[in-house]
């Protein structure tokens, strides 16, 4: 499952230009600007149970709890039917944000790390306003800040403070973050992974799989600088890897084709991993308006819900 970014030229005029948005220095304010006016309904829970919203009837089978028998239908039709309802619960969302040194690259006036922090803050604000529990885990080559998902006063503030810390890590170790999440977060929830994913993929796939197996929903935001996406440097130079410090001479004109091929292959692999796991993959160039990210997020949530439902129905099991 993947969501592609709409063409920036066809961007609705109501959307805020990322450059303008990033010029706001306060992270919380930036997030609030994006979330403002954006409201969606409550999240549906995959858990069926006793709730106010009726879903369907099902014929009684021996073993069903007789409390859920619809006596009125029985009175009318003399048949036993079980009433089913949709359970309404609060979402538990854990934001996993990459703060490695590769995220400090940026060809625009802001870096990928700034953009990723704003995106995370926006999502946190949005979810918090919905009354969902939000947590944060930042990582580079090791785990940095970990705030378990909660919905209480000060949580949002703590998230903002953690996101405002500079990205100082040297390399990216997504796997360690995923392993930590798998080990510590037992309750099912939504895992939002925001990174540039400039790391080998095989280990990532393995840990995403175990995360998915724990019942978590997963959304991947792949943050890319426009220069990374196009590699349109005008002249050759000695290129230095910001993480490893390796330096070698590169002529962009000669190297661009191969670079783009490799990058697309990498992205394609990531996308196919997500498809395999049922995770949502959202590619986020840093010049893309953040409202669209929010929109994609909500859409991704809905699709995930439908997927779960389809899968459950297909297996013939109750979604309880």
């Amino acid at each position, binding site marked *: 499952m993947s969501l592609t970014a709409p063409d920036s030229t066809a961007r609705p005029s109501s959307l805020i230009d990322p450059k303008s948005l990033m010029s706001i220095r306060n992270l919380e304010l930036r997030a609030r600007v994006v979330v403002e006016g954006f409201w969606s309904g409550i999240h549906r829970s995959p858990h069926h149970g006793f709730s106010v919203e009726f879903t369907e009837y099902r014929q009684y089978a021996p073993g069903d709890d007789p409390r859920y028998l619809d006596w009125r239908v029985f009175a009318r039709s003399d048949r036993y039917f079980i009433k089913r309802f949709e359970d309404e619960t609060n979402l538990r969302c854990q934001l996993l944000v990459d703060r490695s040194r590769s995220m400090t690259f940026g060809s625009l006036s802001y870096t990928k790390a700034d953009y990723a922090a704003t995106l995370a803050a926006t999502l946190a604000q949005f979810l918090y306003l919905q009354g969902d529990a939000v947590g944060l885990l930042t990582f580079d080559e090791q785990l940095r800040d970990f705030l378990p998902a909660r919905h209480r006063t000060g949580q949002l503030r703590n998230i903002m403070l953690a996101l405002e810390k500079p990205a100082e890590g040297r390399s990216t170790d997504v796997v360690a973050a995923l392993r930590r999440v798998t080990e510590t977060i037992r309750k099912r929830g939504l895992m939002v992974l925001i990174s*540039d994913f400039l790391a080998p993929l095989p280990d990532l796939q393995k840990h995403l799989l175990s995360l998915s197996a724990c019942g978590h929903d997963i959304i991947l935001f792949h943050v890319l600088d426009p220069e990374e996406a196009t590699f349109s440097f005008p002249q050759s130079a000695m290129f230095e890897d910001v993480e490893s410090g390796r330096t070698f001479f590169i002529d962009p004109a000669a190297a661009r084709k191969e670079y783009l091929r490799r990058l697309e292959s990498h992205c394609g692999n990531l996308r196919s991993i997500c498809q395999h796991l049922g995770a949502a993959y959202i590619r986020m160039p840093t010049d893309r308006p953040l409202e669209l990210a929010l929109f994609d997020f909500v859409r991704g949530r809905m699709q995930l819900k439908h997927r779960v439902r389809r899968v459950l129905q297909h297996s013939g099991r109750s979604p309880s």
Partner: protein
Amino acid sequence: MSFLAPAFLLAGLAIGLPVVFHLIRRSTRERKVFSSLMFLLPSPPRLSRRSRLEHLLLLLLRCIAVVLLATGFARPFLKHAFPEASNAAPVKRTLVLVDTSASMRRQGLWEKARGKAEALLAKASPLDQVALFTFDRQFKPLVTFEQWGATPPGDRLGLVRSRLASTQPGWASTHLDSALIQAAELLGETDKGTEALQKQVVVITDFQEGSQTRALQGHEWPKGVQILVERVLPASANNAGIQLVAGSTDTDYLSESAVRVRVTNASDSKREQFQAGWSGTNGTYIGKPIDLYVPAGQSRVVAIPAPSGNSPADRIVLRGDDEPFDNTVFVLPPQKSQTTILYVGNDSATESRQPLYFLQRAFQPTRSQAIQVTAQQTSTPLTGAAIAAAGLVIVTDLLDAQNAATLREAVSQGRTLLFAPATAAAFTGLGRILGLDGLRAEERRLEGYALMGEVDFRHPLFAPFADARYSDFTKIHFWKYRRIEEGALAGAEVLARFDNGDPAIVQVVLGKGRIIILASCWHPADSQLALSSKFVPLLYSLLDLGGAAVSPPRQYFVGDTVKLITTGAGETASTTTVALPDGTQVRLKPGETNFTQTLMPGIYSIPSALPPGRLAVNIEAAESRTAPLPADELDRLGVPAPQPVPVASTPADRAARLQSTELEAHQKLWRWFIVAALAVLGLETWLAGRTARRSAVPEELTA
């Protein structure tokens, strides 16, 4: 300017490298930080056509450094400075050694050797350095390097021919080892600038088994010297030789009735039947010869009955082989030497407790020596003739003044006197001889006995006892002795001491002679010396010390040095003449005692010696072993064999190349080029550092 190694000039093409580096450096100056290089591959450095060269001065300096280095390595030299005189620089140094040992006297061998030598020298180029030497027991020059160089090239072959024509093989043995070593050392002593020459020793020899090669084993050869053996083969291999069976002295092989000879047949001989017998000067057998059967490679020892006393036979001749050079052995009948010992003392020869009794019995006649002890009372005046005829003078009693003066005169002229006083009073006589009137000795009679405690085995008197088996003097007990004051004898040397530290045997040198003083006499009243096993050897040692007991050897080999010993006062007669076997008279220089011209076998006579003597000189037995040595013998001994020379050029080319090498080595221009290159590189380093510092400042400012 010319170059010795012009190929190195190709390194000058490296001048392009600084230019390329300047262009490459320009294209890689910018640095960009990127998020990750995981999708990128390094691009090969590309040159931009539009790039302009910067830092032209630096580039120029770098190019100059490269050119200077390349030129230096090409070994430049200036040809115009070449001295014309060295156009005749030699290119090869060869020493030709021709064997002139006795075995080369075989039929046709010398002619072949001469032919080979002449052919070899005819091939030498005018630039070569060549010398011609002969060797047998000695290493003799025929044409030296200097003579070769000084002779015009056209006359050189003539010089060699004339020298070879006047040379004939001698009778000496083949000392191949010493000849090769001397030749190699002569070649090794090259002048400066000739190290690169090919140095070769060419040996023209029959390479016989009897050649001495022992010294070649493990010899360290001079670097670059090669040794090439050119063999000459005889027309016939049938050779047998005859030698006296010799022991340590010349009389051992002569018994009263027969002479033992060894007949050796060469290992490649085809003859087995021989005859040997006495012969005179005319070569015909005197009496009946003995038939011998000696298989090839073996030897037989036979006793040939001695000729009758008046027979003219002085040689034993072997017949039956093809080569006569080693078929004669010269034999002299044994000669008994007469030695007299003058004993001056008052004791009786028949009294068995007196010194003279033991002395007379100590000197028993031997086959080669007859020693007579002449006793004389101290009261009888000594004559100079009696002293001169005596090999040793022994005094045991007090001498009067006249006799002491006579003895003093004789000792001063080189005689040896043994002073063994039986009483302390006799020391007065010694004092008279030595001119010390107050000389006294103290009679010491011991309660027990004294032993010989300290012996100087380095002195010739005790040298025969130096071996640990004979050095034990502690079995001789001394009951009494005369204590000598060492201080009273000026210049006295104590040869032995008693165990209480008193001198036992003292030597005093007087003029050319010496006096040996015994503190205790040998007769039983004084000591056990006469009864000990040391007594007789000690007396003979004294005789040797006095020069009386030496019986000179009479058998020599060709090339041996004969030490002429005459009777008299130990001096050679002023006009010693030696008659050679061919009748030639050789007169020795006055005072000369060594006769070295034993160049041919035969009987040498020395009529002027006292008494008139004769010497027999023979060929060494090794010369009869004429079978050739294995071809790889020299390899086995580690002699440097000739290596194939990479000859790809004509002599003229080689000469030119050699000249260039010499000239370049002399001029050494490459040093200046290297120094200049280093200087340019130093300047370049300074300039580059300065440029880098200047360019760094604006970047810091802009940052």
